[in-house]
């Protein structure tokens, strides 16, 4: 297999675009949430400033080796996820490093960041971080289950494990999208999507009231900035997967921006009007509502 070196700068370009768009999108979504509360909310460039400020803080303290690695793992999860799925379908420049079995790898990367975070936050020694991590892991695991089953359904449906091929199969008409060919699997996956976006009703992990903000309690300045970067990249990368698997992928940047924005908006809309579930309630919710639908989607195929 010959490797084209030009793919590396191309992938980095994709990463940069996604990163900048992610920061912007985060602010826009926050503004939309603020409008629901009759406010104007933060300026759309606020996230960039916050990021610069956090990198510019003068002091950092550490709690040990794993404490460093936590945010690094988390960022790796986000970046890795993005790099191994095709961002824009049919444009060689933004195909990234997709290959035949990338669907499995993507599934792994979705989980990777949380694990790294668990190690890092555990090292910080703050009890709130430990509680947050234990809540987070149990909830993410539960949320992942319907998603995994839905992905199996899709893989079975198209008889491939390559994201590119799945996207290719959905081209042509809007009605070729998985959302119309297998609505049950998509419903289950969207439930899991809500769970993994860390927005209400499934954000008890980061809840400021129930425990002060969970895993990142002890993270500050550059560490926090690293996690903010991840928070810009990771949801977009995740939404790229959803978009590719269920909503026909994107053939150019404007379509990509629009679809990602709509997906994000879906999570935000649900988030604004719901309080949080407790962890055991959300786990139950995923198992009771998510998994059966996903299994039904499996049989639909």
């Amino acid at each position, binding site marked *: 297999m010959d490797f084209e070196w030009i793919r590396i700068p191309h992938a980095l370009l994709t990463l940069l675009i996604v990163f900048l768009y992610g920061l912007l999108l985060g602010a826009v979504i926050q503004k939309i949430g603020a409008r629901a509360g009759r*406010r*104007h909310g933060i300026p759309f460039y606020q996230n960039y*400033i916050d990021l*610069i400020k956090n990198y510019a803080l003068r*002091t950092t303290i550490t709690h040990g080796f794993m404490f460093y690695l936590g945010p690094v793992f988390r960022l790796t999860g986000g970046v890795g996820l993005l790099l191994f799925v095709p961002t824009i379908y049919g444009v060689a420049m933004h195909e990234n490093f997709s290959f035949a079995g990338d669907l499995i790898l993507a599934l792994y990367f979705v989980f990777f960041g949380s694990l790294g975070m668990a190690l890092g936050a555990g090292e910080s020694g703050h009890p709130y971080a430990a509680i947050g991590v234990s809540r987070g892991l149990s909830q993410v695991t539960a949320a992942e289950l319907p998603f995994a089953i839905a992905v199996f359904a899709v893989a079975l449906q198209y008889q491939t494990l390559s994201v590119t091929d799945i996207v290719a199969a959905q081209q042509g008409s809007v009605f070729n999208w998985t959302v119309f060919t297998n609505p049950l699997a998509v419903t289950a996956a969207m439930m899991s999507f809500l769970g993994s976006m860390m927005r209400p009703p499934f954000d008890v992990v980061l809840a*400021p009231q129930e425990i002060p903000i969970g895993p990142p309690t002890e993270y*500050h300045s550059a560490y*926090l900035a690293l996690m903010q970067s991840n928070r810009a990249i990771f949801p977009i990368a995740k939404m790229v997967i959803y978009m590719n698997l269920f909503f026909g992928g994107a053939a150019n940047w404007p379509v990509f921006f629009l679809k990602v924005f709509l997906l994000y908006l879906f999570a935000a809309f649900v988030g604004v009007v719901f309080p949080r579930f407790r962890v055991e309630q959300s786990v139950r919710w995923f198992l009771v509502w998510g998994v059966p639908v996903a299994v039904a989607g499996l049989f639909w195929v």
Partner: protein
Amino acid sequence: MKDELKPRIVKGPDGIEFEVDPLRDYYCEASPSVHPPVYVKIVEDFFNWARSESLWILGFGTGCGAIEMRPLMTPRFDAYRFGVQWRPTPRQANLLMISGYLSTKTLKRAIRSYEQMQSPKYVVGLGSCTINGGMYWDSYNTIKKLDEYLPVDLYIVGCMPRPEALLQGFEDLKQIIRAGKAEGANQYAEKFEWYKANQKKVIHDWDMPDYNW
């Protein structure tokens, strides 16, 4: 001093007994150091601008001033527009609002919170009671002059200061930061002995390390 802070013998899960002195073993004893501006002026100016436009307040309502914080976060005044946000943990905050009188018991917590924040960090004293005791000038439990205990960048007068006054205060603080004059953290590190002596004078049961990271 509380029981759990006294030196004692602890038996670990593996059955080995060892001695623990919580104040020395669980905390770091190093005192703060001065972190002067290190970059060239233009970069430092740029960073100062970023710092001023992104003020993260520690959500710690120390006194009655906290009541005017809620309107600041909500539609009428909406301080988010000006880059002011609230963070629940001191590690991530840059601005400590001392919202009103500080009883000696709260002073202890405020000092701890302040020391856990990362520099550059700013302190705003809110209301006349932080300036000279205000209504509580003869009270036996509130401090009368905040800048003896923490390096204050800005005072906002009033009892209560109105939200408009607070917004103006944020703008003034931004001016100070942009001018590079908000070096409270360094001042604290330089005059550390003096601040500690003042703090220990009013906090009688000092059961924490001298500097809380």
